[in-house]
């Protein structure tokens, strides 16, 4: 498919506001995508790689501005691009405002010597620098864009940023105005044409005449819209049904919402109760070595993923060692890693995150803070997907997977999180007290009969924390400080998600040391999109965990609510903006 065709359809979709119409447009786009269906199914959501794939383009806004400037013509630099961005507010509009294609390729001069290709001998002014007036633009394909971006993601090491600019420049240089609009948005992950995951799911079902349910299931286990779309087209429902979990391909973690013991018991009669660990979520994939493995090192294939499906295997060698020591069949386990001190007592969550972010000197980091995994769910065991099994059965499977020998007492199994199923509130309170005593956060309440729903924050899992809830808010603005703090950003504007939009809920300025301010400034400065006096507008990228005393209605903020006494608790490095809390949750917390 020509990239121009894709850009044209994307423009049509963007102009449409009715959901059903959008689905119909996406359906038609998928139906005509031909061999490029997997790519188109991702591009239309603004994705270059499957959702499960941790590969990123790693293109900062500045890299993109450089490439646009280079393709844009004589004496345009990245600052000019930024100025236009401040004016137009959106990178796609900026890219579309330039006429690209001024740089010719050598290909234009192949085959024909002498006059011809460039108007040799004529005046210099018979060229049109814009649109399709030259032989560079108008022939880019979706596949070429995909292949170039894949090359770009693979660039690493010294000089790789320059190489990325080169590759991106090469693409922009071949773009018409409309193509440039969607290329710029694609590379900066800002597609925003109103196509969400649900849209593509429905469009796949309609385009290839399959029911929604098997599409939904296949998407949940694979997180690969491209593969699911292609399978739906080629093999229909039976093909979709055959898409299973795969060792090495992460699934979205099932999520919990806040809840109370009373409600849980009322709803389910019995509740499954487990400790809530103050750690970071992981998903462990393990496949033992093939017995005929010529290496004979007897080490299995191990992958560890964060809750964002990011590969964190190298950062957490303890988990890999755990797998090699305790596991002997192919499994996918859901759990947490907790940081522990020398006595084995848990350390705060922030300590765990230090380990997650660590890319170099892992051995040294491990000396400072060591972690251990605790597992509470089993999604796959020895060839069988267990997503549709009830919680208690999955937990039984987990026990048999982790138990070194049949007779081992549950309490003695390494890395095994115990589960109590009870209808007795007093027993639940006792588990809660033990958890707090052991230094953990409290308890989780789960519906014993519930299946595992990847990526869902549903009623079947509820967390009960001993203190007030905290909120994970997207930082959307800040102010430069005064005096001693003039070089630091402070007074951070917080927002929650509302569909695709972000709505402000307050500003947080307290609870932050100068040292922390410096760190936050470093973290946020690259995301500045506009400045006005001391006020700074930030692109949504960083998530803060904030505490508060209560939630009030307020005309001051766009959400209609304000956090009373907000205080900064930490940066949620493990969450992207999509993982931030929603307006809906805010309202739910307020009603509690």
């Amino acid at each position: 498919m020509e990239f121009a065709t894709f850009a044209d359809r994307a423009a049509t979709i963007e102009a449409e506001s009715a959901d059903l119409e959008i689905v119909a447009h996406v359906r038609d786009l998928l139906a005509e995508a031909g061999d490029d269906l997997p790519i188109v199914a991702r591009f239309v959501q603004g994705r270059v790689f499957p959702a499960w794939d941790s590969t990123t383009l790693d293109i900062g806004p500045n890299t993109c501005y450089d490439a646009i400037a280079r393709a844009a013509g004589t004496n345009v630099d990245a600052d000019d691009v930024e100025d236009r961005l401040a004016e137009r507010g959106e990178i796609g509009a900026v890219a579309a405002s330039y006429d690209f294609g001024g740089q010719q390729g050598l290909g234009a001069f192949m085959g024909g010597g002498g006059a011809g290709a460039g108007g040799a001998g004529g005046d210099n002014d018979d060229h049109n620098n814009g649109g399709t007036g030259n032989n560079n633009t108008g022939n880019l394909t979706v596949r070429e864009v995909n292949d170039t971006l894949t090359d770009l993601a693979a660039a690493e090491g010294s000089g790789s940023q320059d190489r990325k600019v080169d590759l991106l420049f090469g693409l922009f240089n071949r773009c018409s105005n409309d193509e440039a609009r969607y290329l710029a948005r694609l590379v900066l992950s800002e597609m925003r044409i109103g196509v969400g995951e649900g849209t593509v799911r429905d469009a796949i079902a309609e385009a290839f005449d399959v029911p929604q349910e098997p599409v939904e299931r296949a998407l949940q286990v694979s997180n690969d819209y491209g593969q699911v779309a292609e399978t739906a087209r080629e093999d229909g429902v039976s093909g979709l049904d055959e898409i299973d979990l795969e060792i090495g391909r992460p699934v979205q973690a099932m999520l919990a919402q806040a809840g109370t013991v009373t409600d849980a018991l009322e709803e389910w009669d019995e509740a499954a109760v487990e400790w809530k660990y103050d750690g970071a979520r992981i998903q462990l994939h393990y496949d033992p070595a093939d017995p005929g493995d010529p290496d004979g090192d007897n080490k299995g294939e191990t992958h560890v993923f964060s809750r964002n499906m990011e590969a964190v295997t190298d950062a957490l060698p303890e988990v890999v060692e755990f797998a090699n020591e305790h596991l002997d069949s192919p499994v996918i386990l859901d759990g947490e890693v907790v940081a522990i001190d020398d006595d084995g007592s848990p350390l705060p969550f922030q300590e765990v995150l230090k380990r997650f972010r660590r890319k170099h000197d892992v051995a040294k980091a491990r000396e400072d803070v060591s972690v251990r995994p605790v597992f509470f769910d089993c999604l796959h065991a020895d060839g069988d997907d267990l997503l549709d099994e009830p919680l208690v059965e999955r937990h039984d499977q987990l026990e048999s997977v982790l138990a070194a020998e049949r007779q081992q007492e549950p309490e003695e199994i390494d890395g095994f999180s115990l589960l109590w199923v009870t209808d007795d509130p007093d027993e639940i309170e006792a588990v809660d007290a033990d958890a707090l005593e052991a230094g953990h956060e409290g308890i989780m309440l789960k519906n014993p009969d519930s299946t595992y729903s990847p990526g869902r924050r549903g009623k079947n899992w509820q967390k009960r924390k001993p203190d007030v809830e905290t909120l994970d808010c997207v930082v959307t603005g800040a102010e430069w400080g005064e005096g001693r703090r003039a070089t630091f950003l402070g007074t951070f504007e917080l927002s929650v998600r509302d569909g695709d939009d972000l709505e402000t809920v307050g500003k947080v300025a307290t609870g932050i040391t100068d040292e922390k301010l410096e760190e936050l400034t470093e973290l946020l400065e690259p995301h500045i999109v506009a400045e006005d006096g001391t006020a700074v507008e930030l692109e949504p990228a960083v998530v803060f965990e904030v505490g508060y005393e209560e939630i009030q209605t307020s005309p001051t903020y766009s959400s209609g609510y304000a956090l009373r006494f907000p205080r900064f608790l930490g940066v949620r490095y493990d969450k992207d903006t999509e993982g931030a809390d929603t307006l809906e949750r805010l309202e739910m917390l307020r009603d509690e």
Partner: protein
Amino acid sequence: MFKAIVSAETLTSALDSISVLVDECKIHLEEDGLEIRAVDPANVGMVDLSLDAAAFESYEADGGLIGVDLSRLEDIAGMAESGQLIQFELDEETRKLHIQIDGLEYTLALIDPDSIRQEPDIPELDLPAEVVLEGKDVNRSVTAADMVSDHIALGVDDGDESFYVDAEGDTDDVHLELTEADLIDLQAGPAHSLFSLDYLKDMNKAIPSNTEVTLHLGEEFPVKIYFGFAEGQGQVTYMLAPRIQSD
């Protein structure tokens, strides 16, 4: 089979002239010397390099093809002191290149040549003007243009028999003219083309100031830049596509 000994200077000159355009390249190990051709990802700048067997202290090859990571190889060459010799031997079994600089041994993993971007076809261009000048004058032209603009026009004045450089900035302009007296040789013809300094600056880095450089130019056509190194036993040809001149 490939076994060779070469001076660090010669190797570095060769690698530097390629690495301004690409990170990885294929090297043809021909019987009579090395051949490298590469084009940048946007297909705008191309390099064609040959290094004759005579440029080596010793050279044996039988037509193999290897793929290398240039920055890695440049780093290794950088370990040699001035005047030191670098010794290469290809292990066909393991597809690794053994490199020795005195007591230093380095085993370099090669890249699968099929994973490297395809080598370009070289356009056959009939360019009417030819300018021969010293490397330092190329350098001066590029530096002057870079002060005011990100583009540079190269041209030959048919009437005056001179070579000129124009650069137009937002506020300032640069014009530099070299007459026959300043040039080593000039074959005048209709020639005026605009080029991106992003590319030309990089190519310029590889051009030694004391060498003789030949430019082939046309009207809105690519420029061909030719120069020798390693006492003429190495040859580099760059080709750079023009920008379309607006207004």
